[in-house]
């Protein structure tokens, strides 16, 4: 399959093609389409293109050709909610939490090109789906059809299309061709930093890059499209906040405190909604953990969560639409666009590489020290501390990735991720228990029978989660040893401490 500029099609009409003649037939059909993808363009990145035309879905894939499915409600929404069919099957790769959203609109028509000989026998054929936008941009997705025994004509057709500017669909996407002004959402922006950038420049660049990421997610949170918008919004802010706390002395003390407070204030109104999102996502997991006899209480709890979530979403949505919020985030973006107004600290001019090396080395040493004291008997607090330090180390390393050699860096990140997975689960189970306890304590005195039912289920759940937490806890010593192999130790020394230590 190929992508051809729509403007090139008419030139084929009646044009000679070797010994053959090209005949173009346009069909009369014309219908409005929505180009669907996830917000982060998961389909485009997989070389897929999805159009919704009324109740029909048309999907172009690189490996399965073009697929069609009808009977789809508008808007399409989550893949899991689509009626079963070939398009749904092919969309199995789409992350379950991501909803399909329209990224652009236009009109769809079709055309057919045939290369015919002097007997008017068709020897090769191309079928086009022609996509045009209101702004006048147009592309055609071409499917070539070879006819048995006419290989030469097929080669000729491929040649003709290539001359008309056709590119394989795997190398180009209708989204880019149709909407040249469309800005793709990127959750992890690539930083464009010089090798000799200073710590100050690096901090400004990271914050300056993540502020727009947060902004891009606002509308999705307001419209409540899927939970990933808020998740990404919070991650962007958390990254900014970790820059402020990890990049010691890059900004003046006063400046740092002020910024920390402002970003903390941005983050605060989002916490409850995210918590509730997470609870609701855990629904199936919790149900699987308990016997059916205890599902009644869970059902009740999740109903309460769902109701509260609706309110929390409205509150946050209102906040994000408020003038105060708009003014604050605009000011912050402006501030980091023109960093001259920021007060630099004593470490501002340090080269990013040296600055990062010192911070990473210090953090790594700290992690080793904590880990050395952890055995089966250590307090949970220590394990939590290890998790937090690992997280900080990971952030630091991600931030300064451009300043260090790629392969060595990768060899450290991978085992670190594994260790973090273990610590993360340990933490999740612990946080879940805490919040379930809070939930029980927060229950009103009114409905005694209902509360009993809740307490039974939630109590059992806490017990199961506690067992899970213990199991993860058991793995920590081993996971750390796996992370901190002699190779890891050597690489940390080499990269961040001049090979010494």
């Amino acid at each position: 399959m190929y992508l051809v500029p729509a403007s090139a099609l008419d030139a084929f009409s009646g044009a000679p093609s070797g010994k053959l003649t090209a005949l173009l037939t346009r069909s009369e059909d014309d219908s409005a389409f929505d180009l669907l993808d996830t917000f982060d363009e998961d389909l485009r990145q997989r070389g897929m293109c999805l159009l919704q035309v009324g109740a029909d879905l048309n999907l172009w894939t690189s490996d399965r050709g073009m697929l069609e499915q009808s009977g789809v409600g508008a808007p399409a929404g989550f893949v899991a909610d689509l009626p079963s069919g070939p398009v749904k099957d092919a969309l199995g790769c789409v992350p379950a939490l991501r909803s399909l959203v329209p990224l652009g609109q236009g009109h769809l028509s079709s055309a057919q090109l045939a290369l015919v000989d002097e007997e008017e026998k068709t020897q090769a054929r191309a079928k086009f789906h022609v996509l045009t936008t209101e702004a006048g941009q147009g592309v055609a997705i071409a499917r070539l059809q070879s006819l048995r025994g006419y290989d030469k004509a097929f080669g000729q057709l491929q040649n003709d299309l290539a001359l008309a500017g056709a590119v394989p669909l795997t190398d180009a996407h209708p989204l880019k061709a149709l909407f040249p002004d469309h800005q793709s959402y990127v959750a992890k922006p690539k930083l464009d930093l010089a090798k000799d950038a200073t710590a100050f420049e690096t901090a400004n660049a990271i914050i300056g890059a993540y502020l727009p990421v947060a902004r891009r997610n606002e509308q999705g949170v307001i419209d409540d499209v899927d939970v990933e918008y808020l998740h990404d919004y919070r991650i962007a802010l958390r990254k900014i906040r970790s820059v402020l706390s990890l990049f010691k002395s890059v900004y003046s003390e006063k400046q740092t405190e002020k910024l920390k407070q402002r970003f903390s204030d941005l983050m605060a109104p989002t916490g409850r909604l995210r918590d509730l999102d997470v609870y609701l996502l855990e629904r199936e997991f919790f149900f699987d953990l308990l016997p059916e006899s205890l599902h009644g209480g869970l059902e009740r709890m999740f109903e309460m969560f769902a109701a509260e979530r609706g309110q929390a979403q409205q509150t946050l949505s209102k906040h994000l639409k408020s003038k105060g919020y708009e003014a604050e985030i605009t000011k912050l973006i402006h501030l980091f666009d023109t960093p001259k107004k920021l007060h630099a600290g004593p470490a501002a001019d340090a080269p990013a590489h040296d600055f990062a090396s010192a911070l990473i080395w210090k953090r790594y040493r700290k992690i080793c020290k904590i880990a050395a004291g952890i055995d089966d008997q250590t307090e949970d607090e220590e394990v939590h501390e290890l998790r937090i330090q690992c997280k900080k180390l990971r952030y630091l390393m991600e931030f300064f990735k451009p300043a260090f050699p790629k392969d060595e860096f990768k060899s450290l990140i991978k085992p670190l991720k594994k260790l973090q997975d273990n610590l993360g689960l340990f933490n999740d189970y612990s946080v879940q228990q805490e919040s379930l306890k809070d939930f029980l304590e927060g229950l009103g005195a009114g409905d005694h029978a209902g509360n009993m039912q809740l307490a039974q289920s939630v109590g059992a759940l806490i017990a199961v989660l506690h067992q899970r937490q213990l199991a993860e806890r058991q793995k920590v010593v081993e996971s750390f040893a796996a992370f901190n192999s002699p190779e890891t130790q050597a690489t940390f020394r080499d990269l961040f401490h001049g090979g010494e230590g």
Partner: protein
Amino acid sequence: MKIIACYSNKGGVGKTATAVNLSYALADAGYRTLLCDLDPQGASSFYFRVKPSKKLTETKFFDDVERFTKSIRGSDYDNLDILPANMTFRDFDVFLSRMKNSRSRLKKALKSVKSDYDVILLDCPPNISTLSENVFSAADGIVVPVIPTTLSQRTFQQLEEFFRENGLPPKKLHAFFSMTQGVKSLHGQTMDEMRKEHKKRFLETQIAFASDVERMGVHRAPVVATAPRSAVAVAYRQLHNEVMERLNKA
């Protein structure tokens, strides 16, 4: 895979029109179909605008299955390929003996070039000879167009006799009345007689004489494709249904 022969021991009975429209109806119904043009006087490949292959006149051609498959041409329609042939009598014989003796080998060869057909339709030359015996034994069914005239009555009797004499199962014969004309009372009378005489041999479907069919030479396309709603197109589809029903039962 089913092999259907379109055969008549008398010329000018609409045999090629039947092969062309039946093959189209098969393909349109979803059967992957290969139409083999074996009749040098016929023109089924002409109707599909496919030029005869020069290679096909070479005597040893059908010894080489790969070359056989290489000369197959895609028609303008989905699921329908054409073997444009203009072959010698001897080639035809060799071809048929291959069909008969090594159907599995042929099938294998076709599979190897990704063209496992559901139906192979043979548009056969209009003569009765010892060689025709091969067609009759290789095919799962022989579709025979018959114009309801006294002369045709005789030729069909000869065909049935031929089957009996050569120990071929007559139930493979699926005759139908072709180019019938409602105004000719003789036609109606002959049809009644023949249906009585050759019980079960005749299909229900009749293909009436139609100018649409005559115009096929101008359009160079099956009438079922160019005039799908015409009475004759409907009749050809019905013929297709009836033939496949019988073959699937057998």
